[in-house]
């Protein structure tokens, strides 16, 4: 099993990962699988090796907005290692892939006796907090095209690939704009040669063009994640 494909598990010392390994399983859920609903008790932690999890806030009238994504550099429910926790959001599989997963009680048992895991939880939580702040500002002040470029690049990094099985309806929900707006912006990117899109799939042809088109938030968030990966300031 390839648990170290997940960047958080990869930075743990071998002897620490060995404590988790007897309880780690590997699963390959289908697109749309729901791992958590708002208010539910977190009973498993998920570490994507590939694929991507979306965290969605569901409004009272049923509208959903994506507020964060979790890929191979992160984990879903990691803070559960510090004790019983409930989920704030719905968590669904947006891009299918392989996920390492562990029961919450097993993870908590190891984490409570292992400082390096508690450090990982603290630093990852800090990174998510920084990312949420950056994205709140981004959604308020940056244009839809820059945010689309930023989002495509982040998703490609999450799954470590250039083919994104994402519908325009989903991208619109993600960016908080009409589906028509996303279609017109995607057409523009396609005319420029940055992406190619067909029904339900976006293929990145030029990362550089998307990087030129993206707001600075892409680099800021990437640097924060890189700092976590390298264990800077640990």
């Amino acid at each position, binding site marked *: 099993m390839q648990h170290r494909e997940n960047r958080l598990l990869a930075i743990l010392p071998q002897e620490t990962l060995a404590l988790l390994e007897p309880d780690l399983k590997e699963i390959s859920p289908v697109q749309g699988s729901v791992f958590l609903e708002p208010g539910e008790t977190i009973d498993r932690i998920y570490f994507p090796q590939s694929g991507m999890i979306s965290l969605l806030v569901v409004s009272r009238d049923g509208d959903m907005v994506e507020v964060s994504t979790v890929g191979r550099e992160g984990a879903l429910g990691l803070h559960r290692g510090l004790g019983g926790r409930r989920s704030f959001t719905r968590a669904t599989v947006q891009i299918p892939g392989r996920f390492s997963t562990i029961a919450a009680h097993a993870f908590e048992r190891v984490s409570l006796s292992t400082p390096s895991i508690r450090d990982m939880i603290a630093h990852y939580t800090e990174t998510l907090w920084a990312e949420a702040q950056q994205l709140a500002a981004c959604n308020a002040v940056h*244009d*839809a095209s820059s945010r689309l470029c930023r989002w495509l690049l982040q998703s490609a990094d999450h799954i470590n690939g250039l083919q994104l099985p994402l519908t325009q309806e989903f991208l619109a929900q993600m960016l908080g704009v*009409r589906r028509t*707006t996303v*279609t*017109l912006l995607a*057409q*523009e990117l396609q005319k420029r040669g940055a992406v190619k899109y067909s029904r339900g799939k976006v293929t990145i042809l030029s990362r550089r063009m998307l990087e030129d088109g993206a707001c600075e938030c892409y680099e800021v968030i990437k640097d924060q994640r890189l700092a976590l990966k390298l264990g800077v300031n640990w």
Partner: protein
Amino acid sequence: MPKYYFYLLDSEEVADSDGTELPDLDAAREHARQVARELTFKRDGMLQRNWSQWTMSVRDIDGQVLLSFPLGDFENRPTGIPD
């Protein structure tokens, strides 16, 4: 519900070829205006051409133009909403 198709026109065309189902032409006009607001928010134009060079048009399934307006109307307005 009828389907409406939203286009941006300059010397070339950027098209929403899938179309969007909406109750009537009033709803299509409001949708077009909202899309125009979202496109022009904090941006100068598309494909290196200023918004003043682009026209938004709404067509029916037969390609007949039902309404059109210049995107330049949405530029440099704090709310992005033309009068």
